């Protein structure tokens, strides 16, 4: 049997084998896959593998990021939910008592999230533009954890706008794609610029790192309000 150990993040399990590090979450809906991930059974509990290549939180976990402060029963606001690869794992972690608001602007991918939400009753899909929080603020409530994974030029501004939905003491996870902000500048310069922007907005940065080799020219920030 595999040796799964709970990490400092409750609900996320680590397996340190000779093949490398793998992360697992308990499957909320037994026997169902969301994308083409692996399922294993450990003494009656089913686990789903958290891909480090497809998911930016997964990659950040593999790079040993600071604790995310994500617990069972939390409310999560997920900006740029897409088809629900990462959303499904966060939904595993927060369990049936929690709630995750997945927001995306593209109808094509939200359609898939809508079907996923049929099975997982803790996912709330919302078709809206994250750049205009006033259009969806009545549909959500204040959250314990905020994730943003949007590849747009105004990534940082969108994050700062949505920070008002985060409870005091809650943590936010911001994934930055340097190539979306400016292709001509070097990624390192862009990350420094983003850090400065966050500091100017008086956001408390807990941890930050690039995602090499899992993602190219990506950087993540964990902030606390």
């Amino acid at each position, binding site marked *: 049997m595999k040796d799964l150990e709970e990490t400092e993040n409750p609900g996320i399990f680590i397996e340190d084998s000779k093949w490398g590090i793998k992360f697992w979450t308990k499957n909320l809906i037994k026997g169902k896959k969301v994308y083409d991930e692996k399922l294993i059974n450990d003494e009656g509990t089913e686990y789903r593998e958290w891909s480090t290549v497809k998911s930016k939180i997964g990659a950040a976990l593999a790079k040993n990021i600071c604790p995310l402060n994500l617990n069972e029963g939390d409310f999560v606001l997920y900006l740029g939910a897409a088809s629900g690869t990462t959303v499904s794992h966060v939904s595993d972690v927060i369990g049936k008592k929690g709630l995750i608001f997945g927001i995306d602007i593209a*109808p094509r991918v939200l359609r898939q999230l809508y079907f996923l939400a049929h099975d997982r009753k803790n996912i*709330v899909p919302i078709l809206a533009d994250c750049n205009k929080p006033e259009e969806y603020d009545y549909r959500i409530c204040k959250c314990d954890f905020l994730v943003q994974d949007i590849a747009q030029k105004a990534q940082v501004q969108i994050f700062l706008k949505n920070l008002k939905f985060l*409870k005091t003491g809650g943590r936010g996870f911001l994934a930055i794609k340097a190539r979306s902000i400016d292709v001509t500048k070097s990624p390192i310069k862009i990350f420094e610029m983003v850090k400065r922007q966050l500091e100017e907005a008086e956001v408390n940065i807990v941890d930050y790192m690039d995602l090499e080799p899992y993602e190219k020219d990506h950087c993540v920030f964990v902030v606390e309000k």
Partner: protein
Amino acid sequence: MNKTVYTNIFGTFMLKGDKVIAKKLFKNLTDRKNKLKYEKEYLKKSVEKADSDFVFPKDKTFNELFYKFNMDKTKKDLIKSVRTDNLINQAINNIDDLNRVINLLSKRLREWYSLYFPELDLKIDDNEAYAKIVSTKKRTTLEKEFGVRTIGSDLSTEDVNQMKSLAKEISNLIKLREEEKNYIEEIMSYHCPNLMEVATTTIAAELIEHAHTLENLAEMTSSTIQLLGAEKALFRHLKNKRARCPKHGIIINHPFVGTAKHKDKGKAARHLASAISIATKVDFFHEGTLDNKQGKLLVAKLKKQLNIK
């Protein structure tokens, strides 16, 4: 502790601190438009509206309501989200795919039929005509028509029938492609007639496909439109100044740009892009009924600018 009033997607609540002391749940999504009435009721008794720092209490029934109401709203939004642009995008992509499939199958048919009657491959260049001849005519009649004695081997009727059914399928696909083109022309003639007039049907559809929606295209500058489809060359130029800047993207296929002399190509592309930009803006921001009057004027102006008769 102050009492506050708060309204979200599924109800109006009176709260004390973070505890709900009175609530009015909406029956359905449209009930929310009465929220002012409900809020007023509470505001009479109690004090103020909730501020932005307010934290909604966690409760199992509230979670379910959040889920139910938002799913309903998202369902409505998704149903509304399909637009004419999506249809154009799918149709133009379909034509692209059909082109690829027709070429692939035609190549196979030529190889295959050449075992039986190789002379036809040399005589007929057009794929459509080739497929039609293979599916309808017999080898003996063809021999008489072209006046040759074939060097192909004699095959049984069963073998030849396989080739004929493939040729029939190719003819059908070609027919489908024509239908699709007519369909695109039809929907675009009421969706964006001016753009179609200036840019020709295929290029107009490709431009919309590239920008995803007509709205996005209308918001683009003419220099962006000029280089749509040449992103790879553009970014190569931006990263390394030694690489030269591209002059045209998708619009290279337009007759005005394609037929221009080499040194005039940039000029033609620039003028055409600016005309397309104006036409798109007319199409998207128009009021009342839409016709292609503006597009015709733009084409006339373009011809004058580029000295085309």
